[in-house]
């Protein structure tokens, strides 16, 4: 049984179909990049995988004991609520909640883990700062640290490099690659950076209201969809 399987899934908002006939299958340790134009349904698919939205048809199957509490999530353009008094540390630690059950406090181990994740995303020096005083990119890194804290098996990232400076973006790709290789973390990432997608990912899903392509990254580079999309994005950049 695969870690995650979509069977003939249709995603729609109030009868207006966004994606249809979507079928794919992910094994543990896969690294999937979802690419496609604005409005093609990438974020909608991520939200559906998280049970935040119901598919209007088809099935999504989770295998190998994949539960909510082993999933980490970084939302797209996650605006930290204005005027919310919360320090970076408080936010990053809140990732442990899915596993703490009824326990009313954080354990030493959980606090150490939060520290680790802050270090990995380079926000340790901001730990005591209030989140609303940080720049957009710094906030993004904080929420990324939170996502890492919640993920033990599956990490869902919706445009994680948007808003990061190029160096931080590279660092992020490296970090995720390491997690994926060493800790066998399954990663699903939405990105507009096709070059990085084919470089790092094991699989690519190209959405345009229907899945135009699903397969390995190498296969995507050979396919017509991939070739034309990459040529087009290069021409733009």
């Amino acid at each position, binding site marked *: 049984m695969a870690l995650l399987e979509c069977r003939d899934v249709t995603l729609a908002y109030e009868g207006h179909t966004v994606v249809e006939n979507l079928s794919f299958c992910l094994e543990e340790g896969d690294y999937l990049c979802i690419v496609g134009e604005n409005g093609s349904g990438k974020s909608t698919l991520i939200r559906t995988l*998280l*049970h*935040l939205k119901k598919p209007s048809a088809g099935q999504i199957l989770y295998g190998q004991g994949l*539960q*909510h*509490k082993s*999933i*980490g*999530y970084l*939302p797209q353009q*996650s605006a930290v*609520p204005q*005027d*919310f*008094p*919360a*320090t970076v540390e*408080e*936010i990053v*630690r*809140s*990732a442990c*909640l*899915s596993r*703490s059950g*009824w326990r*009313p*406090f*954080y354990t030493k181990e959980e606090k150490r883990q939060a520290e680790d994740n802050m270090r990995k995303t380079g926000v340790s020096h901001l730990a*005591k*700062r*209030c989140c609303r*005083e940080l720049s957009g990119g710094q906030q993004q890194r904080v929420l990324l640290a*939170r996502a890492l804290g*919640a993920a033990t098996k599956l990490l*869902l990232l919706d445009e994680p490099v948007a808003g990061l400076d190029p160096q931080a973006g590279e660092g992020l790709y490296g970090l995720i690659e390491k997690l994926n290789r060493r800790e066998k973390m399954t990663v699903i990432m939405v990105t507009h950076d096709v070059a990085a997608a084919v470089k790092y990912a094991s699989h690519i899903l190209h959405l345009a209201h229907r899945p135009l392509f699903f397969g390995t990254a190498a296969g995507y580079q050979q396919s017509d969809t991939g070739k034309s999309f990459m040529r087009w994005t290069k021409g733009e950049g």
Partner: protein
Amino acid sequence: MMAALTSMLSQYFQYPFVRYAFAVGILIALCSSLLGVTLVLKRFSFIGDGLSHVAFGALAVATVVNVQNDTLVVFPITVASAILLLRAGQNAKVKGDAAIAMVSVASLALGYLLLHLFSASSNISGDVCGTLFGATAILTLSAADVWLCFAMSLAVIVLFVCFYHKIFAVTFDETFARAIGVNVGGYNIFIATVIAVVIVLAMKLVGSLLISALVIFPALSAMRLYKSFRSVILFSACFSVCAAAIGMTVAILAGTPVGATIVTVDLLLFAICFALGGLRPHLGRA
């Protein structure tokens, strides 16, 4: 002068009912400030007002049908409305603030109408004024009321401490909390219930028109001065307890209405905090 005031106070405190009222008042103030932070941050500052009007309507019903213990009527109705209103807030089709306004004026009007039509009491405007502004209600609590208030406020405080981190997560980012498998719907209902409990309690202290003051002033003052969730919660709890203690002492000594006095003290302390926040923007980094 000072000695006279102190002896007058100690005289008052000889009466057990004054001591009870004082303790209950402080507990209630503490509870409402704890939840106040969550409510202000979730943009539900006015739910206190709405719910207290519902509670007023329910109280009118209880008075008219002549129930012995009116809390038995008021409480379930208020809890149900709290859950409904918080639900409406999530539903994009029914705008939260409009729903609160609608429910609040409707129950106020119906409650007053009911009292006017069916009340046996000859002093209707006095009764209404009492429920709206709290009047001296806190000093006329029965022993059963006092124990009920005690038990409920202690329960609220214990629950809040136990679920503190979850309340933070659900307030800060509901979507993320839901995504990692926190039972957000359950916690929202839980928060709504606790809020309803606090509102019903606070009505006894300051009356239904002034409840929002207990909810928002401590939270806003704390958010002006502090920048982490924990210090905001702690400071607003201290703020609220001080305001309630000062307000009740003044009310006893000067014979002013308890609710209005507490709210006035709240307002003064808020002004001080606001000024401090402007003077020292870096006070209390964390």
